[in-house]
């Protein structure tokens, strides 16, 4: 039963957007996609550049780094080096999706399917998002943060605030809790409790740094106090709670940056899945529209053209190559899961005995809900996708003369390839593993961090710069020791050691 197409021209109107949204929504519902309500906002390209610059936050505090980002985007865009993304979608409730006014009707429909049903359902269901972020309160919290920082700028001066934010940004990736669910954020509560917290925090800090010796403690005992009692990986949290010299407003800013880092943490871990899921659904939903006769061939051609450019993967030796395109990988894997469920081959039955031939929708929803990029690839990357993308794995060991091709897309390589690719998406491997291991609380108050090397990878020189920032927050000497196993490989210190005292020193290895 073919229906008349919704529209035939490429111009969009608000009524048409509404109609398309309704039709796409109906199909999405028939697949049982669970979404937040969407808020579709039509914006101009200038506004899109603004949205870009604020890393997708609908409102953010002021900082020069966003200005830098903006200038960069503006320049590339004006030079025509870069097209703007067709959409930005924000993990909030209602979920905000931006549509650019320059887009044609087909593009708007694509964006609605991609953002308002694809990403939106991902945000609502994936375990990382449901566990770690609060879609209901993020907008309010951002508003609170912006107002608070504005207020600080007025009372403390722009430079002082900027310095603290600079330092916090440098450590932003080390401001997340990885293993425990963060306390839900709420702007109203933040505001009411912020004063209270200020006083309480300051009191605790003061207690830690109490200099009056407790009479009943013996000297020997004093020596042994080990603080923190366990290594800390959330550097910003540790700073917020324990840095001796920070003022209350500075602690609050550390907290704000930390909360925002926490909010973005799941996005960094689910790029492939998130984009793959959204691409899969815009492809499926729009094809269903076409099958129902609601859109024309012209519409589909335009859609397919931009769809295929989004999921294009340049080969490794192309000048356009810049890593594996998460859209390509994600889309291929999602499509492949459906294929395995619907038309399994003998190979699939061997590799995926539990999903081959099962209900595709249920299987895909399970995969979407319960994995992150690393585990998703480890679980679902099939030999067929590896063959299609012609993946191969190389090992670049600085102790060897040549780069070794360790596995390619063949029977003996599939398993290695899969593990290695998953490893690339493991934040734990990608980012240096750095923990706070010791604070000299009875002596010079110096802070010691330990970098545990992964496959002998050293710290980059930027480490010294970051330590300067950490030093600004901590207020006393900061050291970073980089260990490969038990051997000290690199040693950074801020402020740098003076010439005289650079006499060889045996590193004390802190067993944890």
């Amino acid at each position, binding site marked *: 039963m073919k229906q008349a197409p919704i529209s035939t021209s490429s111009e969009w109107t608000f009524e048409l957007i509404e109609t398309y949204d309704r039709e796409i929504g109906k199909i999405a519902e028939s697949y049982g996609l669970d979404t937040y309500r969407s808020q579709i906002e039509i914006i101009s390209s200038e506004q899109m550049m603004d949205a870009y610059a604020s890393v997708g936050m609908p409102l953010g505090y002021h900082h020069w780094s966003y200005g830098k980002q903006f200038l*960069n985007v503006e320049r590339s865009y004006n030079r025509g080096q870069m097209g703007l993304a067709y959409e930005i979608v924000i993990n909030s409730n209602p979920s905000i999706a931006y549509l650019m006014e320059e887009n044609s009707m087909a593009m708007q429909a694509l964006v609605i399917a991609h953002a308002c049903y694809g990403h939106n359902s991902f945000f609502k269901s994936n375990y990382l998002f449901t566990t770690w972020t609060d879609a209901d309160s993020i907008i309010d919290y951002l508003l609170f943060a912006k107002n608070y920082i504005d207020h600080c700028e007025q009372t403390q001066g722009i430079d002082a605030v900027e310095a603290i934010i600079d330092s916090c940004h440098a450590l932003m990736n080390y401001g997340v809790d990885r293993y425990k669910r963060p306390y839900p954020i709420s702007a109203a509560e933040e505001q009411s409790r912020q004063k209270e917290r200020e006083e309480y925090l300051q009191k605790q800090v003061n207690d830690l740094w109490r200099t009056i010796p407790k009479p009943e403690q013996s000297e020997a005992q004093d020596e042994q106090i080990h603080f923190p009692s366990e290594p800390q990986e959330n550097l910003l949290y540790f700073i917020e709670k324990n840095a001796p010299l920070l003022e209350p407003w500075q602690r609050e800013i550390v907290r704000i940056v930390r909360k925002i880092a926490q909010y973005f943490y799941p996005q960094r871990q689910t790029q492939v899945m998130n984009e793959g899921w959204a691409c899969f659904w815009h492809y499926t939903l729009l094809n269903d529209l076409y099958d129902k006769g609601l859109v024309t061939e012209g519409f589909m051609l335009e859609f397919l053209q931009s769809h295929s450019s989004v999921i294009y993967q340049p080969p490794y030796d192309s000048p356009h190559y810049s890593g594996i395109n998460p859209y390509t990988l994600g889309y291929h894997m999602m499509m492949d899961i459906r294929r395995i469920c619907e038309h399994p081959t003998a190979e699939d039955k061997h590799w995926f005995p539990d999903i081959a031939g099962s209900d595709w929708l249920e299987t895909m929803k399970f995969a979407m809900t319960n994995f992150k990029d690393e585990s998703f690839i480890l679980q679902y990357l099939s030999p067929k996708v590896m063959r299609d993308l012609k993946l191969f794995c190389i090992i670049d060991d600085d102790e060897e003369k040549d*780069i070794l091709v360790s596995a390619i897309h063949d029977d003996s390589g599939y398993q290695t390839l899969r593990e290695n690719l998953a490893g690339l998406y493991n934040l734990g491997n990608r980012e240096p593993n750095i923990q706070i291991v010791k604070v000299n609380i009875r002596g010079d108050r110096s802070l010691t961090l330990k970098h545990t090397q992964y496959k002998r990878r050293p710290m980059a020189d930027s480490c010294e710069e970051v330590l300067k920032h950490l030093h600004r927050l901590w207020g006393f000497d900061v050291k970073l020791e980089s260990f490969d196993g038990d051997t000290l490989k690199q040693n950074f210190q801020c402020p740098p050691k003076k010439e005289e005292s650079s006499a060889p020193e045996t590193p004390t290895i802190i067993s944890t």
Partner: protein
Amino acid sequence: MSYIVDRRLNAKNKSAVNRQRFLRRYRQHIKKAVGEAVTHRSITDIDKGEKISIPSKDISEPTFHHARGGVMENVLPGNKEFTAGDHIPRPPGGGGGGSGEGQASDSGEGMDEFVFQITQEEFLDFMFEDLELPNLVKRQLNGSDAFKTVRAGISNEGAPGRINIVRSLRSANARRIALTTGKRKKIKKLEAERDRLEAMDSALRDSAKIEALNEEIEHLKSVIKRIPWLDDFDLKYNLHAKVPIPKSKAVMFCLMDVSGSMNQATKDIAKRFFILLYLFLQRNYERTEVVFIRHHTSAKEVDEQDFFYSRETGGTIVSSALKLMKEIVEDRFPVGEWNIYGAQASDGDNWNDDSNTCYKVLTESIIPQCQYYSYIEITPRDHQALWEEYLNVKAQHPDAFAMEQIVSAADIYPVFRELFQKKES
């Protein structure tokens, strides 16, 4: 069902503050870039924005990350020729090879410089900062057209400060006359009637009627009295209108000594001075032409490139340039049509017996035709004969002549201030 919101009308400059923060933070870099741009640009081209580039390393935001080294594994797409166990020679220089973690530039473009555009207004701001211009002047240079307010008749509405008293009272008077004429005529008639009655013999006098007439007269008089002396709609206001100050044509003569004693630094200071003057003229006149005259022992009209950057040697005869300027004015710029501005830069060197000639040419033919003539001497040394002669010129024409010694760029402004003070008076 989704909400659909049209946000296109919302402010689009959400990032303006962040952009300002960025400019603020990298002030020093931008100022340096602007300084360089000034020397590379043409005077008449100064009215545009500028591309600023800052070394990327100065604006990077550091984070902890791995350096190359150790064991790096990578998975790449698009295998064509490799099989497991192949050895690939490591690409030289460590870069490329595709096994870095996003360190290398991903576009073909180099990433060493962060390049961005600033607007013309920002460009001028940065340029003026060196010159220590006060804000008023900056606004005049940067800014919108100049207006003057002129009277544009009378209006019924306006601010209390603008009440036109004469007109208001006149109109009140007219209203009062208009509103009372009939009544006063009637009073006159009634009074005549009453007088007639009163004049009659007392026996025949009808006192009741007189009483009635008197009452009516009183009533009419009280009605007249109740008419307000000044009413709201009597008030008249002077109407003022903003009219752009009429603009016309100006020509600016840039005269510069290019003899061997003028070095490039001196020329750059001179250039800034010329730029300022040019901007000023451009704001105030509809059309501004620039004539460049350079001189050593003889003067020559040249284009801008030659003016600032060609090298000449030899002695200095300043009067040659003045004479040429005089000829050009007579030839091409009739004084009736053109506002003529002269700006001369030199290091003060001149042949001694020539300075007197300069004095003559200036006072007799040039200054009488000029709106303004300014002379800057860019030298840290003592003055020479030319300066002394020019002091005499200044004494004779204090309104149209300014001279100043300049050692650094910040000294340019005082000369300029005189020009503005003159404009305001």
